[in-house]
């Protein structure tokens, strides 16, 4: 009720304001009627009309004043003043077009960058996940890895923290082959539990979710599939009739039961950088249980439960599992709110970016403050005149602030355009391995932020100059004739302090960016253990199941023979998992070794063919690599990497040892470690099995080392392979460099943006120095003229001005370096291969800033030395 009334009142007021001039006219009409009625009454009482009219008017008083008074009840006076100030501001902007353009440009760039970064922070950290009641969702990991189906079911049944648990199983890019609709194509399909979508609160756009019946069969033959929105658009041109049709997936008919809404972006939440085409059911059966650790799990908290309480409960449940189900892999549960799991890794980098953009804004403000101060010098007379005419101190202060806020709002308009472009560009960085990037957009929050930033910027950069205004002594200035006063020592001090702070801020930003850039270079320099240059990969899973090992062996023989026969191919091999790709791991032990269950060594498994090590560039350390003779009919063998060799047989020669895998595999070679998780993380244990000796591989990828461009190669390879498998799905060659690029993409994102900010900061700081020195020179033309007339040499003058510049820069540098040293410690988690106090970075940045400062001071200095003493003295 109360709220309703005040809202109504607000609306009324707004309407009054909006239709101000019309109301004014009507008010006059209303009062006119009053006077007229009064006149008539007086005439009726016997007064002659002219007298009556005069009396009425007298009685009514000065009509204008009355209307003014009436008006004041609804237009507060400050609105009027504001309009007046704005008019002044815009008139001033027109007069000083150069200054205005510059301010709008700089404020625009700064605000644009801020709004863009805010949008990213908003999408990744602030905005809730696009699910129903996202705060109740918890990510349940087994350390950092997956969970076995049996363990999942046990936890789901016995826990009291969650109303339900769902999950999805591991999948590979291009796991399913789609045939029967145009060219054969590889799809990425995610197996999900039946309750996955209901638990997240995701309703299919068309059709329905999986039934319990559909989640009972064998995991390799899904009866039904849900399409992702993107795939539906791309492949079926958004045709709703596709629902209810059967698709051929991996040679088996699969019913399309629905399409997921565009708002459900599995990729950007759970697996950034890997587009997903379809979802298939993941049965929770003995069969899937036998696949080992496969599932990523999510739980929905019961009311009252928290992630912490659930963690405590799961730790206990995990102990029970260790005790009662020794046949399972067990779990070391690590529970986190889903939001933290999704964006947690990106948040330190985002914080750095947010701080960086804040520092940029401070530099922008310092720079604009300085410009405004310089301009104020030129407007001394205007201000003095206003004061003389009765403008109060507050009134002048307000006028100055209105001017600066108006300027920064114009800048914000430009900034918004930049932010629209910026957020668009960022949302389309699909190859970047950063979560939720696709949901970055300029929304209402960002608009509010931009407005706030604009006003704050305006106030911040306008306040200092505004406070200086009353310090102009009225009489002094007006009397001051044409003599350009130097503005007093006080203001020179303020201006110098501003420049020093600009240099200091720029210095911290540059040091931060420098450290991260050096880290980036170090990461790129890392010995990957393989050579991504000139290596390319194509997925070539056969389109039919093998009936026997012999058939499989001859298929691979033929495939490799045909590929190697092509011109330009230097080596070719097959693998199931690429480096930086999958994380399939098994427990391993040497023959005769016994480990306690919870400390059993584990190793990543890679199933590869002959030629793989040569084509991907993994170095052999001892023994031999696989050959064509390691086949179904020969002795089971394996190759281990150096870490696994050290783990299982410390201090011994691994060659000739026997792994317990598959009833015993002889180790025939030791190869170098590969960075398989992240470039920053040293390799773990790895075990290679010959592809011809197993059926247990989730994919077949053809890796080639070539002198040609991979895209030119694709057609030739496809043509060569067609005779052995005409239905081989079409896909593109990817270079291994793409793989590496994707792995470093979050770091590249951070470094690119930060370097951009640092560059902008450097530019602003140098402009600031230039402006201050130029101003100082122009204010002291006469002094310089006198000095020169008295015999000071041009070089002498130049070096004096340069020294002054360098003095300012050095002071800023010292402050900036000290601040950087104190702050870079917080960057530690993002650094790689450099220490937070890296002397090379600090010295390099110091040198860079000094050079830039010297350049910025050189031009005004040269101008000063060319002043003609006669002209300078006569000018006054």
């Amino acid at each position, binding site marked *: 009720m109360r709220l309703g009334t005040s809202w109504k009142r607000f609306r009324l007021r707004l309407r009054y304001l909006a239709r101000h001039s019309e109301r004014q006219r009507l008010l006059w009409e*209303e009062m006119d009627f009053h006077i007229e009625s009064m006149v008539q009454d007086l005439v009726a009482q016997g007064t002659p009309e002219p007298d009556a009219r005069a009396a009425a008017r007298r009685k009514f008083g000065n009509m204008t004043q009355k209307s003014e008074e009436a008006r004041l*009840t609804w237009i507060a006076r400050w609105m009027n003043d504001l309009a007046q100030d704005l008019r002044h501001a815009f008139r001033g902007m027109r007069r000083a077009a150069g200054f205005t353009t510059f301010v709008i440009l700089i404020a625009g760039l700064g605000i644009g960058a801020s709004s863009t970064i805010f949008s990213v922070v908003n999408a990744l950290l602030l905005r809730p996940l696009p699910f129903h009641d996202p705060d109740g969702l918890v990510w349940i990991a087994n350390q950092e890895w997956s969970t076995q189906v049996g363990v999942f079911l046990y936890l789901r049944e016995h826990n009291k923290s969650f109303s339900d648990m769902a999950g999805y199983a591991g999948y590979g890019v291009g796991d399913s082959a789609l045939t029967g609709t145009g060219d054969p194509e590889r799809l990425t399909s995610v197996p999900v539990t039946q309750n996955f979508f209901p638990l997240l609160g995701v309703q299919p756009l068309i059709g329905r979710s999986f039934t319990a019946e559909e989640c009972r069969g064998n995991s390799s033959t899904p009866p039904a599939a849900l399409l992702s929105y993107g795939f539906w658009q791309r492949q079926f041109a958004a045709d709703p009739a596709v629902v209810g049709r059967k698709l051929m997936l991996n040679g088996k008919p699969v019913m399309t039961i629905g399409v997921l809404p565009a708002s459900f972006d599995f990729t950007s939440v759970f697996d950034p950088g890997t587009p997903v085409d379809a979802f298939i059911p993941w049965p929770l059966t003995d069969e899937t249980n036998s696949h080992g650790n496969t599932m990523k799990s999510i739980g929905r908290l019961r009311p009252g439960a928290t992630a912490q309480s659930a963690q405590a409960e799961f730790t206990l449940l995990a102990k029970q599992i260790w005790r009662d189900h020794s046949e399972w892999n067990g779990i070391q549960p690590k529970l986190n709110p889903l939001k933290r799991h999704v964006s947690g890794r990106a948040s330190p980098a985002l914080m750095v970016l947010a701080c960086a953009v804040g520092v940029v804004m401070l530099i922008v403000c310092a720079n604009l403050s300085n410009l405004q101060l310089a301009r104020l010098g030129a407007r001394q007379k205007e201000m003095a005149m206003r004061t003389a005419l009765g403008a109060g101190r507050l009134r002048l202060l307000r006028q100055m602030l209105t001017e600066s806020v108006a300027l920064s709002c114009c800048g914000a308009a430009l900034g918004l355009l930049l932010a629209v472009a910026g957020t668009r560009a960022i949302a389309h960085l699909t190859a970047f391995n950063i979560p939720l990037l696709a949901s970055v957009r300029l929304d209402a929050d960002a608009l509010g932020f931009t407005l706030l930033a604009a006003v704050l910027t305006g106030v911040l950069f306008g306040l200092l100059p505004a406070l200086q205004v009353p310090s102009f002594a009225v009489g002094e200035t007006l009397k001051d004739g044409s003599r350009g006063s130097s503005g007093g020592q006080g203001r020179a001090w303020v201006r110098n302090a501003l420049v020093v702070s600009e240099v200091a801020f720029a210095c911290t930003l540059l040091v931060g960016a420098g450290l991260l850039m050096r880290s980036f270079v170090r990461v790129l320099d890392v010995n990957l253990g393989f050579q991504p240059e000139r290596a390319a990969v194509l997925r070539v899973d056969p389109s039919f199941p093998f009936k026997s090992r012999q058939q499989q062996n001859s298929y691979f023989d033929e495939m490799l023979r045909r590929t190697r026969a092509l011109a330009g191919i230097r080596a070719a091999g097959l693998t199931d998992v690429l480096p930086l790709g999958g994380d399939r791991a098994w427990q391993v032990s040497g023959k005769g070794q016994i480990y306690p269950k919870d400390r059993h060594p584990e190793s990543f498994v890679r199933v590869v063919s002959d030629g793989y090590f040569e084509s991907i560039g993994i170095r052999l350390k001892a023994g031999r690599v696989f050959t064509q003779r390691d086949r179904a009919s020969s002795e089971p063998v394996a190759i281990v990497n150096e870490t696994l060799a050290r783990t299982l047989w410390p201090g011994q020669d691994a060659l000739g040892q026997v792994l317990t895998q598959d009833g015993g595999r002889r180790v025939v070679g030791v190869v170098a470690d590969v960075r398989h998780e992240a470039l920053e993380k040293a390799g773990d244990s790895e075990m290679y099995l010959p592809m011809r000796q197993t059926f247990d591989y989730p994919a077949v990828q053809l890796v080639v080392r070539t002198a040609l461009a991979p895209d030119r190669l694709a057609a030739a390879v496809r043509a060569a392979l067609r005779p052995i498998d005409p239905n081989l799905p079409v896909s593109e060659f990817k270079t291994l460099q793409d793989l590496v690029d994707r792995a470093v993409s979050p770091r590249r994102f951070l470094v690119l943006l930060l370097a951009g900010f640092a560059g902008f900061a450097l530019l602003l700081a140098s402009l600031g120095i230039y402006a201050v020195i130029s101003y100082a020179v122009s204010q002291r033309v006469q002094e310089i003229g006198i000095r020169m007339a008295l015999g000071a040499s041009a070089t002498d003058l130049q070096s004096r001005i340069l020294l002054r510049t360098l003095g300012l820069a050095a002071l800023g540098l010292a402050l900036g370096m000290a601040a950087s040293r104190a702050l870079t410690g917080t960057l530690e988690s993002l650094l790689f291969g450099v220490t937070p106090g890296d002397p090379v970075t600090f010295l390099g940045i110091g040198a860079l800033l000094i050079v830039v400062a010297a350049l910025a001071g050189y031009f005004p200095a040269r101008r000063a030395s060319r002043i003609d003493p006669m002209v300078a003295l006569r000018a006054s």
Partner: protein
Amino acid sequence: MGTEKPKADLLPGTLDMMVLKILTRGHLHGYAIAQLIQQLSDDLLRVEEGSLYPALQRLELNGWIEGEWGLSANNRRARFYALTPDGRKHLNAEATRYRQVTGAVARIMGFV
């Protein structure tokens, strides 16, 4: 700024209250309101026109009265005001308050 007191030496808010009371009689224009106040007070209270119109604006702005253009008895365009439900409520509250204040003043002055 923005709020104005009636020029007559009355308790603050009295003019507003009287205008509202007058308007319980129906739709009236500004001149009629002024006339009625004068008549009903036996010529004791004369409303300054310069106070009346700001008061009308203020009351309308608060949503207590609603103005509407119409034709006067002698066929001229005039603005007629009517009391809104909110205004009636406000009038009652004001009247109660006024009675309390004047009662208090009267007790102090020994009128009762």
